[in-house]
């Protein structure tokens, strides 16, 4: 039979072998995995512009259309500018900003940065705002594109890590994100109202408010509310910048 000593040694050796093996795999595959995540981010940004990019042409399309990246600080001032492959101002490339960290800083009352991507497509300027929030089971993220007035939405794209398939996970479908097209985040008086994801449907809102709402997903209330909170929490960081720089 096996003695206790044997069992202890056996498990220790097993754990060490497994640990080495897994660390090796993780370290060796990390560069590739990070590249995949970068490409997925780019695809999300392009998807908000209603462009479908494959893993192969995503980076190329991004360079072709996204001319400028800005980072806006909490006071609405431009903290960094990245243009045509050069960092012209600031210390960090806006694309590399970890939105999760910045939103945490915001919550804690610390200074924070908000990335903003500016696309030029056939002479039209479009603004793309990256989003990050919380759903039912895990993080939600997305991108939302605005026209020159930074008010009317041109396109949106959402994704998630582990929302329930068929329910909350529906936010990543085009049927959901296309509802945002043509909606506005400022009211006629120029006040920021964000976009609300409405349980029961937009038709239950007052007619004047309907331009600021989209239909929620039945069975996905917490995810839908997560999208509302995410939109408000991320978009409000740009209001000062918009009021100072873009006429509404």
């Amino acid at each position, binding site marked *: 039979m*096996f003695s206790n000593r044997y*069992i202890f040694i*056996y*498990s220790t050796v097993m754990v060490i072998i497994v640990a080495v*093996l897994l660390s090796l795999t993780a370290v060796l*595959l990390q560069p*590739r*995995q990070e590249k*995949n995540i970068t490409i997925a981010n780019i695809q999300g940004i392009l998807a908000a512009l209603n462009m479908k990019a494959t893993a192969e042409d995503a980076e190329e399309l991004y360079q072709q259309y996204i001319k400028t990246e800005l980072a806006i600080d909490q006071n609405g001032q431009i903290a960094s500018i990245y243009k045509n492959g050069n960092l012209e101002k600031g210390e960090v490339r806006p694309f590399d900003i970890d939105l999760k960290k910045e939103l945490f800083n915001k919550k804690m009352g610390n200074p924070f940065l908000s990335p903003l991507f500016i696309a030029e497509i056939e002479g039209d300027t479009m603004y793309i705002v990256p989003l990050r929030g919380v759903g039912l089971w895990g993080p939600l993220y997305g991108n939302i594109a605005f026209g020159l007035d930074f008010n009317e939405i041109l396109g949106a794209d959402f994704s998630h890590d582990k929302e329930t398939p068929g329910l909350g996970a529906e936010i990543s479908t085009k049927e959901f994100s296309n509802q945002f097209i043509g909606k506005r985040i400022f009211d006629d008086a120029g006040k920021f109202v964000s976009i609300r994801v409405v349980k029961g449907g937009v038709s239950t809102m007052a007619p004047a408010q309907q331009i600021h709402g989209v239909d929620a997903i039945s069975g996905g209330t917490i995810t839908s509310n997560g999208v509302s909170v995410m939109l408000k929490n991320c978009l409000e960081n740009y209001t000062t910048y918009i009021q100072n720089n873009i006429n509404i």
Partner: protein
Amino acid sequence: MSAEVKEKDPLFSLKNRKLISAPLNRDNPITIQVLGICSALAVTAKLEPSVVMALSVVFVLAVGNVLISLLRRTIPPRIRIIVQLTVIATLVIMVDQFLKAFAYDVSKQLSVFVGLIITNCIIMGRFEAFGMANKPWPSFLDGIGNGLGYGWILIVVGFFRELLGSGTIWGYPVLEKTGLYNWGYENNGMMILPPMALIVVGIIIWVQRSKFRDLIEEN
């Protein structure tokens, strides 16, 4: 002392071939043993994740069964379940890492379910019932056989659920190309929901038992 003359089995003897063929039909993990149903419901809304899941399980099951079989004489019985779980978890994490690196889209779709291979009872069941008691080569075949037996059900279910639920196969809009929608056909949204996987599996069981009548239990 009995003079035990061990005859070396040829690599693909009848017995060894049966290790692969039996789980495909008469000893199928899903339709006969009704194991691994949870993941069969979860990943089969589309064909692609079904295939990836099937391949992942074949890999984990075959490699794990061989490892367990190689270690079988060294594993202290008192901690054998822990050892089995460690082997499964290691392999599954490696599969997950590889998917993240080489098939990112699929790994995003499967995300939670790849991790759940760890709890797939087919794998634990085969390690405990076969790998612990047999030589590496038969264990390997047993792993492949059971993995495929699980996999083909997944793929059949995924095929019908995607075709009837989304009108596509592997993302390709077949029904749209045939112009069926112009005749007033609509996708059956219910096929996408998990309960329909159970019903499809039920139909497969029905077809199987009406073909092989001896599988039907008394009462």
